[in-house]
C-alpha cells in the first residue's frame, strides 16, 4: 500500500470550482428573471432630455435645429449675393476701362491726324 502514490487521480474541468457556487445558486431557478417592471410610454427615450435639462445642458430641440438651418441658408444666400455683386462691379469696371481706352485712341488719332496726312490718305 505504501507504494501507491497519494496524489488525486481525478481531474476537473478548468475553472470548475470558481463557477460551481454560481451554477448551484442558479440551477434551480423557479421564477422567471423577466423584468416585471415597466415605464410610461416613451419614458426612456425622453429621459435623456430631462437629465440634460436638470443639469443645464442645452437640448437639441426642433426649434433650435430650425434656427440653425435658417441661419445656415441665410449665410449661403448672403455669400452668393456678395459674389454676384462683386462679379458685376468688376464687369462694369472693365467696361468703363474699355470705353476709356477707345475714347483715348479715337481722340489720339483725331488730334494727331492733321490735314496733310488726310490729303495723303486721299
Amino acid at each position: 500500500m505504501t507504494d501507491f502514490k497519494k496524489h488525486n487521480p481525478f481531474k476537473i474541468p478548468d475553472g470548475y470550482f470558481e463557477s460551481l457556487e454560481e451554477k448551484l445558486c442558479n440551477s434551480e431557478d423557479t421564477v422567471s428573471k423577466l423584468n416585471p417592471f415597466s415605464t410610461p410610454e416613451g419614458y426612456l427615450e425622453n429621459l435623456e432630455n430631462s437629465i440634460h435639462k436638470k443639469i443645464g445642458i442645452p437640448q437639441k430641440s426642433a426649434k433650435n435645429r430650425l434656427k440653425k438651418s435658417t441661419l445656415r441658408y441665410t449665410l449661403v444666400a448672403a455669400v452668393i449675393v456678395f459674389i454676384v455683386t462683386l462679379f458685376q462691379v468688376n464687369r462694369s469696371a472693365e467696361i468703363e476701362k474699355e470705353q476709356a481706352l477707345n475714347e483715348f485712341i479715337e481722340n489720339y488719332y483725331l488730334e494727331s491726324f492733321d490735314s496733310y496726312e488726310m490729303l495723303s490718305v486721299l
Partner: protein
Amino acid sequence: MSKQQSIFVNALRDPLTKEEAFKKLVTEYKERLYWHIRKLVLDHDDAHDVVQNTFIKIHLNIDKFRENSSLFTWMYRIATNESLNFINSKAAKMGLLNQEWIEAKADGLMADSHFDGDQAALKLQKMVARLPEKQRIVFNMKYFDNMNYQDISEVLDTSVGALKASYHHAVKKIKAELND
C-alpha cells in the same frame, strides 16, 4: 482602467468637451442605471427622481473619480448610494424602518400601473423586499442584472467571499419561502 476609458474621462473633465461627452454618457448608461435603481426603489416616479439625482452627482463629481475602478462601477456605486439615501429619507419621513418602507412598496406593486408581473413575479418581489438590505442589493445585482461578483464587490466595496455568502443566504431564504 482602459486607455479608451481614460480618454473619455478626460473628455468629461475638460470644460471644452464636457457637455458633449456627458451627453454620450447619459445615452450609454441611462437605461442600465434606471433599471438598477428601479429594482431597488420599486416605484417608477421614485426611480425617475433617483436616476436624475444620480446623473447630477456624476456630473458634479467627475473630477473626484479616482480612476482605480471602471467608470461604470463608479456610476453604479453612486446609483446604489442614491437609492439607499432615497429610501432612508422616505422611510424616515414616514417614521418607518427602511425594511418596512420597502416591504410596503412591494405590497402595493399589484396596484402599480407600471408593474406587469404575474403572481409569481409579485411573490418574488415581496420575498426580495423582505431580505436584509445588503442581501437584497446583492440578490438584485446578481440575479436580475447578471453582474459578476468582482464587479459587485467593487460597487459595494465588499469582499467577493462576503458577497457570495450574502447571495447564498438570500437564495436559500427565497427558496425556503417558495417551497412553503
